[in-house]
């Protein structure tokens, strides 16, 4: 424990890392306030820029983008009724009405404080839960990993965007994408279409840049003529003692909700904030105020979405299963920088792990300072004309896609997946399930094949392994729990 604290504290003693976190926090807040450019897109675009950095610095940069952009979405949600990130959508419900009443500073103050508490709480949970989970995960063999990956995929059924069936179709498509290239056991080429650059499979980075950045660019092209009404902001106000009295229970509850939702594979800050908001309303004595500027509504959503960031890092680092879209990018970052996600990370490179956690903690504190003192400035940035912003994103995305392997094929892959992602979103399919499927695809197939070898081809023996059976049970619950529950509720009513 003391070693862990020392490693976390060493972040402050590394001036270059502190400088990087500061710059990235500013960048993250800018990314968060620019509508369309969320944490996932920002992390995907920045990943190639981290190539020459040390692993800890690189992952700290990506994690900082994650926490700061997740918070910053609330600035535009409150001031222009446009959530900078999907995770801040619930903040608009009460943030904007409160701002319209002339209390924009108070709304932002509540958002900043709640986000910081949520973020710090989740990092503390991350520090405690991740090594504990890692100790359990040492015992995992192929059947357990196979079942766990299936559980991760089954959770796609319940993520907020898209619908159950559409998300599962996206996930299956993603898993299929992971089969492109040489089959790991036999070396037989699959779906390479004669292109030997695909022998080792599709690179994650260009696919992610395409799915998140390029597709968002095409989505934004429809919004170029939109007019936004910005509400003026004098200064951000810290919550008063009365405000704290009203929101503290909500914040505590949302911290728990957000962290728990974050830990679940594939669930992220968006669903956490929605549940945090709904629970804040359910437990509030002033339900009628919700939707008209209730401060509990802002606190509930904001504490939950930032609490989900630390939670989502738990399965990402311990099990190699992304806890959200952005952690999927961070997972790729870990792989690119030679930090193999999994329980062994906690024995072989434990110092680096805690430095990353320390960086996340520092980022949470830095965005609080920026939120309190520079929100006015950042709010102005959100009004940058789209016709200038998105061509710049195009340049960053194409060069970023090229940079990882110096391959033009990766640029074409990013462009193709940009169009695929756009068409999918146009028809109501979310792109995050494709990304999660792509990451988990190899894990599912390889561990299934290895399990078959372990049990001499008798696949049902997987069910005789207690942990594997438990994960498969969770997977079934994840897939069918919600429809069965709603069917039972309908029958009752």
């Amino acid at each position, binding site marked *: 424990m003391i070693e862990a604290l020392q490693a976390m504290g060493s972040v402050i003693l590394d001036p270059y890392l502190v400088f990087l976190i500061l710059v990235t926090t500013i960048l993250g807040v800018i990314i968060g306030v620019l509508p369309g450019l969320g944490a996932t897109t920002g992390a995907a675009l920045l990943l190639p*820029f981290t190539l020459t950095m040390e692993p800890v610095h690189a992952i700290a940069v990506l994690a900082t983008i994650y926490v700061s952009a997740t918070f910053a979405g609330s600035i535009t949600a409150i001031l222009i009724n446009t959530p900078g990130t999907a995770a801040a959508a619930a903040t608009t419900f009460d943030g904007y009405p409160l701002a319209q009443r002339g209390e924009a500073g108070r709304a932002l103050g509540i958002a900043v404080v709640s986000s910081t508490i949520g973020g710090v709480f989740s990092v503390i949970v991350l520090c405690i839960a991740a090594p504990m989970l890692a100790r359990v995960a040492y015992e995992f063999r192929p059947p357990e990993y196979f079942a766990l990956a299936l559980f991760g995929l089954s959770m796609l059924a319940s993520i907020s965007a898209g619908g159950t069936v559409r998300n599962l179709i996206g996930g299956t498509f993603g898993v299929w994408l992971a089969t492109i290239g040489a089959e790991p056991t036999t070396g037989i080429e699959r779906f390479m279409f004669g292109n030997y650059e695909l022998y080792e499979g599709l690179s994650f980075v260009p696919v992610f840049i395409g799915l998140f950045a390029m597709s968002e660019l095409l989505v934004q092209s429809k919004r*170029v003529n939109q007019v936004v009404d910005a509400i003026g902001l004098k200064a951000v106000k810290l919550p008063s003692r009365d405000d704290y009295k009203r929101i503290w229970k909500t914040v505590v509850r949302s911290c728990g909700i957000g962290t728990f939702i974050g830990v679940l594979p594939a669930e992220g800050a968006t669903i956490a904030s929605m549940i945090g908001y709904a629970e804040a309303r359910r437990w509030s004595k002033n339900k009628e105020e919700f939707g008209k500027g209730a401060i509990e509504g802002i606190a509930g959503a904001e504490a939950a979405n930032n609490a989900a960031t630390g939670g989502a890092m738990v399965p990402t680092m311990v099990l190699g299963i992304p806890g959200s879209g952005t952690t999927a990018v961070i997972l790729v970052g870990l792989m690119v920088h030679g930090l193999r996600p999994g329980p062994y990370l906690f024995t072989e490179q434990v110092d680096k792990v805690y430095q990353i956690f320390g960086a996340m903690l520092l980022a949470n504190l830095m965005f609080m300072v920026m939120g309190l003192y520079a929100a006015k400035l950042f709010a102005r940035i959100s009004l940058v004309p789209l016709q200038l912003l998105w061509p710049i994103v195009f340049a960053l995305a194409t060069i970023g896609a090229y940079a990882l392997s110096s391959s*033009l094929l990766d640029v074409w892959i990013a462009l193709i997946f940009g169009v695929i992602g756009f068409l999918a979103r146009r028809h109501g399919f979310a792109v995050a399930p494709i990304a999660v499927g792509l990451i988990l695809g190899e894990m599912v197939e390889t561990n299934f094949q290895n399990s078959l070898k372990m049990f001499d081809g008798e696949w049902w023996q997987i069910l005789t392994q207690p942990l594997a059976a438990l994960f498969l049970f969770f997977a079934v619950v994840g897939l069918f729990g919600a429809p069965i529950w709603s069917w039972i509720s309908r029958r009752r009513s």
Partner: protein
Amino acid sequence: MPYLVIPGVITAFSLAVIWAALQLDLSPPMIVGDSLQPRVFPILLMVINLVLAALLAIQYRKKPPKKIERDGLHTWGTVALFVIFYPLTVYLDMLIAIAVVMFVMCLLWGERRIHVAGAVALVTPAAIFFLFDMVLRIRFPRGLLTNWYYQ
């Protein structure tokens, strides 16, 4: 039956993948052992996809999806720029291609100040190029400009 379009596309895609998987080479039994032939896993996935496509068709029949607004010139023009980007990169230079696409995209999306669009289209790729070349030491594909620069 417009509600069948999307499930139909997914079905066609799944069947195409199954067909392509059936064309894959078979691995000798002594290599495969107790595990699966390389074609089995993709076929299994696509069978799941076919079931999901059928479920989607049923869902859409009960509750048709929202009518999608037609995309305008901004969107399809941008997709066209993606397509044009390929020959420009291959036959001219990647940086020139990025600058041209950025410039046209600015104008296409409604920027009326040509000098601003021009400045953004010139400065951004140049800045990113120097950052990647000097700081990250990444060499860009050969083309008109890069040939001259790398000489």
